[in-house]
């Protein structure tokens, strides 16, 4: 009887987890992109985030928004991963279960601007990068505060400074290309 209930619980957890991952795969992948350079590292980080999400899923309480909870875990794993990357060997046992196709239906100029945006974000210090990524994902100050642990006032000041930096970086590269 208990075994049947356990099996049902695991099955239902699997369904929830796959749905969660499917709904948020692009968000997670964009975040992975901000913290990694190579495609292999991106896929390794995605895999690590997925493992931590699965581990944390039974402790998720509905009073927090699922996106806030998800970003918090993903960012913490990404931050740790980005420090470990220097010391880490590529994961030899990596299974290519996730595939990212280059989706841009856009023209070359838009593609180049998008690449530039990613480069400008990657150049930011880790904490600024976390805040900016969440801002670009359209999280509210309250959500960013819940995810990063910083105060809303602090986030407001940070975002205003990082926005200037980011726009400056984008302008500089456009100026450089012109």
């Amino acid at each position, binding site marked *: 009887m208990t075994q049947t209930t356990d099996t049902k619980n695991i099955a239902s957890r699997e369904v929830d987890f796959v749905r969660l991952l499917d709904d948020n795969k692009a968000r997670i*992948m964009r975040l992975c992109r901000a913290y990694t350079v190579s495609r292999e590292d991106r896929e390794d980080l995605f895999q690590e985030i997925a*493992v931590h999400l*699965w581990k944390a899923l039974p402790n998720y309480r509905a009073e927090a928004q699922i996106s806030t909870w998800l970003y*918090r875990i993903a960012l913490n794993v990404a931050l740790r991963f980005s420090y470990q990357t220097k010391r880490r060997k590529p994961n030899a046992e990596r299974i290519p279960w*996730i595939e990212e196709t280059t989706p841009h239906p856009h023209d070359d100029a838009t593609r180049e601007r998008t690449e530039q945006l990613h480069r400008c974000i990657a150049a930011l210090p880790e904490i600024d990068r976390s805040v900016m990524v969440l801002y*670009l994902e359209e999280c509210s100050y309250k959500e960013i505060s819940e995810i990063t*642990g910083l105060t809303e006032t602090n986030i407001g000041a940070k975002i205003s400074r990082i926005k200037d930096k980011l726009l400056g970086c*984008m302008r500089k590269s456009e100026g450089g290309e012109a």
Partner: protein
Amino acid sequence: MQDDDSSEKKQIRSLQEMWQQSITNDAVTFNEREVMANIQREIRLLSHHLPPRSWSVIAFFIFLLARAIALAVKGFEIGDASKILWGYTGIIFWSIFAARHIFVRAITYKFDMSSYSDFLTGWLVRVKQEIFYQITISPYLIAMLIFSTVISLWFDARLWLVASYVLLLSIVIVLEIKARDFAKNELEPLRNKLESALQQLNESQSDHTP
């Protein structure tokens, strides 16, 4: 002024759209079965408090500790000071090694990735431990190793013995220098960053407290 603000808002809005369009859900595909199989495999490894690697480390530790004790006992029996010394060196070395291994594993499993504060604290403890080991403990271990080697060679200075001890010691010293450089150049700045992030977090939490 208002025009500037509105232009900046437009630019930021355009960046947000560009960011969200850069990778869309359609562009990421995965196989559910493979996802679950892979996750289960990783979880199995994570959920073992002592994974296969730890068992092999413990087995190796027990073997070397037994050898060290046997050497020390034999040293006492035949009155060979160098053997007693090597025995003690071995016991201290492998005890520190085992304590460190157990500590690292314990910290790894204390991590709670959904709590930012716990995450920073756990990581900081781990980094501080690594710095303490590399900068404070290791030089004493190396000094002890050199002392034991010199005493040992004092009693028995056959050429092949001198050559092999010198070769082994050189490898250990080179690795130790590399590890110290890493601790100074990479781990100390990381510790400072983590401390500052934790302090910022504590300050922001105390701001919230009425």
